[in-house]
């Protein structure tokens, strides 16, 4: 069976420190997975390995069955592996519409075009609007991103990634910094993700994880400690130990 994303014995050493230790997991097509773990468990390193910012010391990464371990970050994006960021990484002076249209244009190979105009391209406009609509950003689509409320910016963070046409979406703490009152908006946005996209969410907020994920991977000290359904994970004494520090 081909998985949307698969890692085999992924390892990354920084000098003597093993930040990622023999991580093997599979993410099925359309899966809703979460990756949790205490601070320093190696979540950020793992994301950087998956997106290609870091090269693994050993092991392989497969995207839809294709080995992408040696591919450049932008080639991975083109192949359908897209991430969001824990701290908003947006284009403050552009509008949400321009941002999403640019990502859409990039997906169609038009981001270097000179003679085209994005507004004249029906597919770009149509598909940009669909993405904005999905995340409830239509009413603010023509305002500079910098003027948007934080919660809306957080949604745009995800919308931008979705506009890239991902097959696998890595969500890095989508609810980071979002006030309690705006949490529901984020959850609604996550529920609106197209079903054919496989999602791996890295999150600290357990409430969000248990409501979103159908399968949870627990990372501790760079290695996968355990994995299973939310019910299994919440009942697992090993997980409690890691999180609550019981010995």
């Amino acid at each position, binding site marked *: 069976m081909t998985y949307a994303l698969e890692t085999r014995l992924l390892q990354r050493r920084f000098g003597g420190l093993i930040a990622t230790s023999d991580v093997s997991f599979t993410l099925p097509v359309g899966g809703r997975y979460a990756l949790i773990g205490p601070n320093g468990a190696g979540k950020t390193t793992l994301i950087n390995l998956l*997106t290609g910012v870091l090269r693994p010391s050993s092991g392989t990464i497969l995207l839809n069955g294709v080995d992408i371990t040696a591919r450049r*970050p*932008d080639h991975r*994006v*083109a192949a359908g592996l*897209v*991430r969001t*960021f824990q701290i908003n*990484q*947006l*284009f*403050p*002076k*552009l*509008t949400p*519409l*321009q*941002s999403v*249209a*640019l*990502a859409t*244009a*990039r*997906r169609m190979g*038009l*981001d*270097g*075009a*000179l*003679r*085209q*105009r*994005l*507004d004249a391209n029906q597919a770009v*406009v*149509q598909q*940009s*609007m669909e993405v904005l609509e999905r995340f409830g950003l*239509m*009413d603010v*689509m*023509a305002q500079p991103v910098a003027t948007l409320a934080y919660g809306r910016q957080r949604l745009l963070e995800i919308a*931008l*990634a979705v*506009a*890239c046409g991902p097959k696998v979406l890595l969500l890095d703490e989508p609810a980071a910094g979002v006030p309690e009152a705006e949490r529901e908006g984020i959850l609604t946005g996550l529920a609106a993700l197209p079903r054919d996209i496989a999602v791996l969410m890295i999150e600290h907020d357990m409430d969000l994880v248990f409501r979103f994920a159908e399968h949870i991977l627990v990372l501790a000290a760079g290695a996968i400690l355990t994995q299973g359904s939310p019910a299994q994970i919440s009942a697992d004494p090993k997980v409690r130990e890691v999180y609550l520090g019981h010995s």
Partner: protein
Amino acid sequence: MTYEGARQALAAPRRWQTMEFDFWLAILAAYALLPERSLLLNETAILGLFALSLDLVLGIAGIVSLGHAAFFGLGAYTAGLIGKLGLTEPILGLLIAGLAAGALGFATSFLVLRGSDLTRLMVTLSVSLVMLELANRLTTLTGGADGLQGIVIGAVLGTFEFDMFGRVAAAYSLIILFLLFLLARWLVNAPFGLAVQAIASNPLRSAAIGIPITRRLIAIYSIAAAIAGIAGALLAQTTQFVSLDVLAFHRSAEVMLVLVIGGTGYLYGGLVGAVLFKLLQDQLSDLTPQYWQFWLGLIFVALVVIGRERVFGFPQAVWRRIRGGV
């Protein structure tokens, strides 16, 4: 919002504003009504074109440069040399000078694009210093410290002979400025330009949505270098003389000052800055031939302290009111 609303919102940045028409009409009026100021107008057009080129690099692509004169100077020497060697057609000269400067921009972009802002300042500065020293040493080619003399430039399009009052020169430079401004505006409003602006705004995210950052920046840097080269070529052709001064550090610094005065990132900044700079320079050097640079410096420091928005905001508001009242 509807499909049509979205389409129009996307098209908005490339629609021509009233202020833009006013600006170009004012330039046209200056040319028509002030024939005795043609030489100044020519210098202003060349400085404006040079600053426009820096705006593509600094304002649009977010690449800091302290050595933009390298391209200006190479363009000037190239145009001068081919004029001296007998290829006197000015427009062909501009094209060759632009190609030469663009090639230098392409070659040095690989050095410039690696590293941080500080590295970029160092590298751009170094490239221009190397070019200056080369021009100084290759005396058989450049005339060294004596300058490149004996440049012959033919009539524009075989019809318009350069005159001693600078009427043809000013018209020629202004038309080239306008055409290259249109080109820059067209580039910036293309998907390519949007991608470059996104890279300047957030390179991390641009990479994360799959934009090939290095390739886009190399392209814009080379294009801007070519435009700077054409600005230099205009100077060589209209003055029929090239000296080491075209590659000097103060030229890189001056064009940066001009652009910052006018404002970066909206393409008119370099032009507005050039007009302001040249007008002040002209007036002040009339008033105090020896100390004009002191007053110029003082005014610019004041401009920075008071804030550009407050200085330009008032006349802009008045102008809008006048236009609005008509």
